[in-house]
């Protein structure tokens, strides 16, 4: 095994002895100094997760979160120097982490917080002018054949729990007590200008937005939305998207805007 391989293994597994090729110039036990490196690795990665998952942390408390994140670090260390992206597999880890089973919505809150980080750093894309969209929609003879391209920050999540309400309740101090998390809620995350915004939406809107993101034309996207929820309200959903600068391109078969 190479020196760096041995070093890496010993850093990630706390029960491994420190590599034998190391020494301290004062004769101190190398393990007592190797602990600094091991602590740097673990605490910096746990801190990165704490920053990316603040409500997940609040739901279980600092001590529990750090222990859970520490096990995640050992199982799934980063595979890229881009620490902004670290933790993509954290929600799936939480889902299977039995000690967290008493907070059944924890994994979905983590999924939701990951979408917020992604939206924050997502590519910039100039939205279409709101008036221009309305005019284009009104002047369109074959509305159903229209394709909309959405801002790169847009993402949705279907949850069996009130994931948006749980998250929102943790944005202000105090009063969380009355919240019942055990009802299904879907989420929309987007960035308008520099600000990440979140909305509770219905499953029909999720199907509609996901369809548009796949390049599906308006008519078929509405059909998919109505299959997901008979209560889907196209006007309301479009108003939400237009009002938050989420539409960046409109394509009909003849012309493209912009």
């Amino acid at each position, binding site marked *: 095994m190479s020196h760096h391989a041995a070093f890496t293994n010993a850093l990630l597994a706390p029960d491994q002895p420190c590599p034998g090729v190391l020494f301290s110039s004062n004769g101190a036990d190398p393990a007592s100094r190797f602990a600094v490196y091991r602590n740097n690795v673990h605490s910096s990665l746990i801190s990165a997760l704490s920053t990316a998952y603040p409500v997940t942390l609040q739901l279980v408390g600092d001590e529990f979160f750090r222990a859970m994140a520490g096990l995640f670090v050992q199982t799934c260390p980063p595979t890229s*120097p*881009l620490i*902004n992206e670290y933790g993509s597999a954290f929600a799936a880890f939480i889902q299977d982490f039995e000690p967290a089973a008493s907070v059944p919505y924890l994994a979905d809150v983590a999924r939701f917080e990951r979408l917020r980080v992604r939206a*924050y750093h997502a590519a910039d894309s100039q939205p279409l002018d709101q008036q221009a969209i309305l005019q284009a929609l009104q002047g369109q003879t074959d509305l159903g054949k229209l394709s909309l391209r959405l801002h790169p920050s847009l993402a949705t999540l279907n949850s069996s729990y009130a994931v948006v309400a749980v998250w929102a309740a943790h944005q202000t101090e105090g009063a969380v007590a009355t919240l019942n998390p055990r009802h299904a809620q879907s989420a929309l995350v987007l960035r308008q200008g520099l600000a990440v915004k979140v909305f509770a939406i219905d499953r029909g809107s999720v199907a509609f937005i996901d369809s548009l993101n796949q390049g599906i034309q308006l008519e078929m996207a509405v059909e998919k939305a109505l299959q997901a929820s008979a209560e889907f309200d196209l006007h309301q959903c479009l108003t939400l998207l237009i009002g938050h600068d989420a539409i960046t391109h409109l394509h009909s078969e003849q012309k493209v805007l912009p």
Partner: protein
Amino acid sequence: MMTLFPQHTVSPAQVPGLPHRAGLGLKNEHFIEVLETLPDIGFFEVHAENYMVDGGPFHHYLGLIREQYPLSLHGVGLSIGGEGPLNREHLARLATLIERYQPQSFSEHLAWSSHGPVFLNDLLPLAYDAATLDRVCAHIDQVQSTLKRPMLLENPSTYLQFQHSTLDETDFISAIIRRTGCGLLLDVNNVYVSCINHQRDPLSYIDALPLSAVGEIHLAGFAEDTDSLGDRLLIDDHGAPIDNAVWQLYEQVLTRTGPVATLIERDNQVPAFRVLHAEAQQADGYLSQVNV
């Protein structure tokens, strides 16, 4: 009416190299304050990896701040000392960032942080032997030819040594600089931390380096622990004010190097901007003394 001749003054943000002033690490919590108050700071430094994102507030604010200040781009993830080849994708991302922001300086560390697929998010120590020297020099050659500019290499803070090291750290660094033509980012806090940890004299360590290659200085705070013998073990944590011993060493460095761009680093327990600004002013004070 008098006509004024157009004045062709160079904006401070466009100077060719980092000014011989104190600079600060740019923290996202200070973006708006910096833009609103435009403090008198020599330059800002950012960690390259934080800006390897597609869009959003980080690029928005860095773009605006870059219009006003010189910039140092400091990498923390290239793993120049790694046993395997450099991550070409990462190097390409660095080239893109450099193209976008045209920083006055690019620097990285004498350390490794990746092995195989795993990135460890720490600056890990190297054995100082001939094979490692060849590898590090080849990696630095590759960085400099890809980025089409010389880089600065930062001396590490370390807690342990390798039994198979055959060179002193200072000889190892000197050989890299001689062979690759890169510059030295002299981290005075790292010198102090490593010298206390390895029972060396910080000034003789500094005197053993090719000081004419110094292109930037770093100053930071350390944490203090003890090892199994109860001896002082200093930890480079960038989480405290600069220690008096490090300020004193800095003053002695400046008498040897003359004025050099000096960065105040603080990455943990980041205080209010004015606290960091005061440390920058203190460094500017030392710099103006050697300017005379």
